């Protein structure tokens, strides 16, 4: 049973990170029917931005205020990058054939990855120990402060996002734009503004995810966005792409799944099993677990 609870804790931790990142994919897809392939690289960039804020702006302080400030500033910077990305890479291609936007997304992904490499170098960097390395052992199960923090903060952000989308006027406008952009415009909704808001939310949640990756795994590399981005993208598809609670559920389930495979089978098999899971779910439920909106826009 020890392994079970240990992997449960580990799975919930990486699941939280997958879920935060998956939200960025799913929200952009929901409104724009576009896979923002650069999203994973934005997540990676956030870890490096956080590293630089820590050394250059915060003078390597690890007080609570400093840590909160690092999270906040990294999220703001990445939200800004997200807005620029949308303006430059996606907005000019809104009316263009779908393939053009896909190529543009892949190009943006490579550019951000190369940008990270140019600025921070190709070698692995070590993310600062912003959170004290405290852990507790309960009946043989080790749980760290970082894990508790990642899980609670992720859940808080997801609840806040859910309430925003479900209960506010702006949230309703986002949902309306995801269903029918022209009908939303007839309501007086500025769809360009909604798309900017989507990129701000998705990029800043991804930024938090990137910092969590740094905190949890410590080693960060310029090309790590590809791997985490892929996992999060799979999580979004598992939950039903375009569906916000689906991305949360998909992320958590994928994290748990990978942790249990690593615990009971072998971590080298985690990737293979992840794709088997994806294929199985897509066979049984092509729209993902919570995805019901089959009606594709033409």
């Amino acid at each position, binding site marked *: 049973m020890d392994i079970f609870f240990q992997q449960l804790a580990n799975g919930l931790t990486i699941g939280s990170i997958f879920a935060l990142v998956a939200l960025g994919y799913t929200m952009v897809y929901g409104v724009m029917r576009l896979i923002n392939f650069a999203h994973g690289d934005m997540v990676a960039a956030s870890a490096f931005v956080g590293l630089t804020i820590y050394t250059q702006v915060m003078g390597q302080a690890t007080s609570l205020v400093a840590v909160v400030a690092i999270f906040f500033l990294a999220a703001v910077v990445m939200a800004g990058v997200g807005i620029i990305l949308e303006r430059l890479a996606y907005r000019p291609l809104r009316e263009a054939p779908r393939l053009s936007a896909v190529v543009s997304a892949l190009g943006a992904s490579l550019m951000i990855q190369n940008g990270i490499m140019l600025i921070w170098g190709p070698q692995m960097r070590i993310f600062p120990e912003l959170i004290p390395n405290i852990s507790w052992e309960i009946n043989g199960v080790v749980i760290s402060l970082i894990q508790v923090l990642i899980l609670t903060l992720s859940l808080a952000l997801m609840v806040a996002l859910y309430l925003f989308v479900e209960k506010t*006027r702006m949230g*309703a*406008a986002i*949902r*309306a734009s995801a*269903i*029918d952009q*022209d*009908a*939303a*415009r*007839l*309501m*007086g*909704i*500025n*769809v360009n503004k909604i798309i900017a808001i989507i990129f701000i939310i998705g990029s800043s949640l991804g930024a938090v995810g990137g910092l969590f990756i740094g905190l949890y795994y410590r080693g960060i590399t310029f090309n790590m966005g590809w791997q985490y981005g892929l996992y999060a993208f799979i999580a979004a598809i598992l939950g039903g792409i375009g569906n916000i609670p689906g991305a949360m559920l998909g992320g958590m389930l994928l994290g748990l799944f990978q942790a249990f495979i690593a615990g009971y089978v072998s971590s080298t098999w985690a990737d293979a099993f992840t794709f088997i899971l994806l294929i199985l779910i897509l066979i049984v439920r092509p729209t993902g677990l919570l995805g*019901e*909106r089959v009606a594709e826009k033409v």
Partner: protein
Amino acid sequence: MSDSPLFEIKDLEVAYGSIDAIKGISLEVHKGEIVTILGANGAGKTTTMRTISQLHKAKAGSIKFKGEELTKLPPHKIVGLGISQSPEGRRVFGILTVEENLMLGAFSQKKLDKKTLKWVYELFPRLEERRKQLAGTLSGGEQQMLAIGRSLMSNPEMLLLDEPSLGIAPILVKAIFKQIKQIASEGVTVLLVEQNAKAALKLADRGYVLDVGKIGFSGTSAELLASERVQEAYLGKKS
């Protein structure tokens, strides 16, 4: 200038790529009128309505509402000026509730006007009964009521209705047209696009007949009803 029109289209041209859909039409609507645009499939009625709301951009010509040129404005600015549209095919937000749809209709307003919501529910009591229901689960007729109700939530001065009778049982069409008359009698100017010429002309003060992108004929409803061309083409009578 007391009788300058509330709304005026002049020499409007609209194209889809290299295909001209609207080839220079002019029309006007005065305050308090119900004006109908009739025309066969593909005549350009929906194109005209979408261009008024700026969902499509005009190739040439002008569209003025209360003297203000609309063609340079982005689509989301139009409803705030007082022109609201219930589009062809209803386009309700299917996975949102009836009430959420109505709230979105008031998105252009600073805050929700409870009086307007009450008015919409009085016009269409069916909507109040189903306010927690997902819009996509309503019947076609109920969805049309919702689309019209939603477009009223912005308190428009002019209402654009694109084929409110489309795919709806005759008995419901009658009920909906009765409420359109009621809406107009409460001071909302109406521009109504219809293929159901008989019902539209019964309701409207004046009408325009659109014929492949051009105005073929226009006049009062009585004139249109009496015209042989309209009778032949739209009222199913052979002369």
